[in-house]
């Protein structure tokens, strides 16, 4: 089929034939389809974390290699004929069209990662609808308060130094707030060791002061509201609702074949210590440590014993995996398919490659090489000069003026030719 098309193009549109535009666009599109498929495969999420597919790096390396080979084969065929160098008659805009065709082919070849990432994200997104994802994430997020959530900051307080006795000072030293805003040195600043929720005091290490997880599908405002909602349940001793939350969470764990030795009743029993909620057990949030790449938690705050130490009970639940997997789904929903910086980067790459090929086509290999070496030398000289003078942005100015100089020189010659 391509032979027939090429033959027709040769007779009718010699330039299109010469650049091998049609077969190259077909190859480029095929490459995109293949990488979309590979991306889709890579986007498979194994919620149980047993058979994960991670072929991204392999695919990219393989893709780069493939593109290099395709480009070489393309150029070998493309460079067989050069009507400009053979002084064949050409239309006025022929060279521009030629560059445009090179650019399109280069863009198609270079951007193979875009369909990969789109395919990947599309597959990740397809597991649950946005609404469903948001619901499940809310369950995971709020249930963290009953597992191993970190403790929230307490309010900042201050006391005038003159009012402190030696012993008081020692006692509150641990709670000194060091960093941040400007502070009056006459005062001593510290975090309170309790929080106040709806007029009732709770210990800073109480269940009520635990944090929820953040998911991108849930806004920060909604996050705070969710936390307050659970705090309310505790504050009002609404056991039924808490149990319902726990049940939802456990059904997620069961659905994804994740491990836990908790049952609803046991869990409730060891954690729900109304009314102060500060004598609960710590549940280990993982089966194996560092099972997933993003460990979800800063363990530092996991216990009130002290920094860097942990004291978990014998109970565990694979929360890390669950959270990690839902984070992926959540991000697939909230991230845009195309990142402008990435596309811009690819376009710059394609532009560079096309200019490189085009300049080789219209000049001789010799001038091409000289240009390359000259660019290198100019850069080194300017670099050294900039380093010596130490003037900020000197390098950028020098390059800018050089380019302007060349443009001026070009128009000078052009005007000379015209006259």
């Amino acid at each position, binding site marked *: 089929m391509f032979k027939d098309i090429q033959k027709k193009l*040769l007779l009718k549109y010699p330039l299109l034939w010469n650049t091998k535009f049609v077969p190259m666009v077909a190859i480029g599109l095929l490459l995109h389809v293949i990488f979309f498929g590979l991306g889709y495969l890579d986007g498979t999420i194994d919620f149980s974390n047993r058979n994960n597919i991670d072929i991204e790096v392999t695919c990219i390396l393989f893709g780069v290699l493939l593109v290099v080979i395709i480009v070489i084969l393309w150029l070998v065929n493309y460079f067989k*004929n050069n009507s400009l160098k053979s002084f*064949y008659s050409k239309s006025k805009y022929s060279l521009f069209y030629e560059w445009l065709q090179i650019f399109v082919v280069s863009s198609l070849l270079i951007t193979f990662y875009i369909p990969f990432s789109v395919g990947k994200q599309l597959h990740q997104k397809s597991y649950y609808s946005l609404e469903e994802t948001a619901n499940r994430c809310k369950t995971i997020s709020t249930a963290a308060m009953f597992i191993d959530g970190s403790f929230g900051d307490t309010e900042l307080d201050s006391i005038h130094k003159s009012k402190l006795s030696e012993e008081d000072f020692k006692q509150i030293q641990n709670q000194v707030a060091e960093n941040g805003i400007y502070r009056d040195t006459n005062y001593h600043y510290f975090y309170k060791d309790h929080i106040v929720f709806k007029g009732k005091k709770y210990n800073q290490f109480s269940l009520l002061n635990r944090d929820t997880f953040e998911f991108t599908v849930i806004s920060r405002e909604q996050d705070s509201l969710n936390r307050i909602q659970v705090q309310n349940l505790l504050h009002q001793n609404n056991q039924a609702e808490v149990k319902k939350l726990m049940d939802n969470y456990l059904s997620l764990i069961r659905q994804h074949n994740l491990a836990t030795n908790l049952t609803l009743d046991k869990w409730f029993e060891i954690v729900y210590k109304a009314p102060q909620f500060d004598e609960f057990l710590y549940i280990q949030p993982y089966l194996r440590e560092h099972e997933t790449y993003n460990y979800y938690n800063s363990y530092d705050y996991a216990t009130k014993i002290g920094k860097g130490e942990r004291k978990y009970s014998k109970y565990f639940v694979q929360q890390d995996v669950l959270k990690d997997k839902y984070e992926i789904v959540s991000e697939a929903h909230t991230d845009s398919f195309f990142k402008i910086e990435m596309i811009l980067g690819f376009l710059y790459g394609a532009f560079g490659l096309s200019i490189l090929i085009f300049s080789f086509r219209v000049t001789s290999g010799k001038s091409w090489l000289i240009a390359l070496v000259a660019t290198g030398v100019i850069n080194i000289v300017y670099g050294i000069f900039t380093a010596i003078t130490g003037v900020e942005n000197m390098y950028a100015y020098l390059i800018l003026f050089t380019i302007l100089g060349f443009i001026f020189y070009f128009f000078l010659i052009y005007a000379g030719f015209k006259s």
Partner: protein
Amino acid sequence: MTEFEKQFREVQELLEFNDFNQTIKRVIDFTLDTENIDFYIKTNAFLNWLDHNEKEDEDKKTRLKTLLDELHVHLREKECHEHQTIISVKNLQKVYNASFGLGPINLAIKTGEIIGLVGENGNGKTTLLRSLCGELHPTSGTINYQFQYDDLYDLRTKLVYIPQRTDTWRGSMYENLEFTASCYGYSPEENNLVVDLVITRLGLRKFRKHYWNNLSSGYKMRFELARMLLRKPKILLIDEPLANLDILAQQTILDDFRNIANSAFRPIAIVLSSQQLYEVEKTSNQVVFLKRGTQKNLNAENDVTKNCIIEFESSLNLSDLKQTLTALEVISLEQNGGTFIATFPEKIEMNDFLKVVINQSIPMTYIRNISNSTRRFFVN
């Protein structure tokens, strides 16, 4: 009688004498002259038939005759192209550095003419050709191209220069020619027909599917010519086209040049450089001899004394010959690689020399009167 009628008679005679090769070439030339796709198809049909019926002379003859008659009827109505000057060169000078300079050169090139550039190596032939094709800018003087062109690039598409060492063609020969034809505006329908005709015209029919590396240098030159014919050039500049050809091929290609240049409807000018003096002189309308960059024209007025110069080969030695030739008032006698060159006063003629040779029984293997050949410029 128009130029075309003259050529038509010639071809008829060729056919009478069963010179099919030559006739077919001329028929192709006429076919291309028609610029008519119907004739392209007819001639191609005949050529395809010929591929399988090489031996049937009678059939071949009748078919050629019909074709020729049809062409005659069509072309009779077509207006012949008058020869006109297309390039005039005035005081052209090109100085590379202190060591070598070309010119001043004065030259008028007309369509339908062949101009031979001769001269020793390194005397400016290639420089002149490259100046004419716009590859080198003259140091002084002007080259005036008397036809329409938009810019320097457009000009160069109309001037075809084939350097002595040509670039390698990549891909199949046929594809390259199709590409050229396509670039030069032949329609998709015409393209293959014209390419086939041109290929056959230059005797390359068997080689069309070949690749560059499988061709001998003679055939490479022919493919270059095929490509240039497709470019419908105004002028063809060729550097040493005969260099790699055997003696038969040299004559064939010069004949081809003659016919191509002299087309009644699409005449072009051909400038070629060569070391094959006598062959070139036979075919060329003008011969330009270059010596250290300066131009010497044959029969130039400033050449006051026109001595009789004879080139010959003999087994006698130099002193014996000198003695025998004193009767003819020999001015000089030089020997160069077994060949003698004798210069006599203007009044002496070739026959006088021959008389002496016969009378004195001088053994001779080769004699040539070079008084009117640029060969004499090579004599010191």
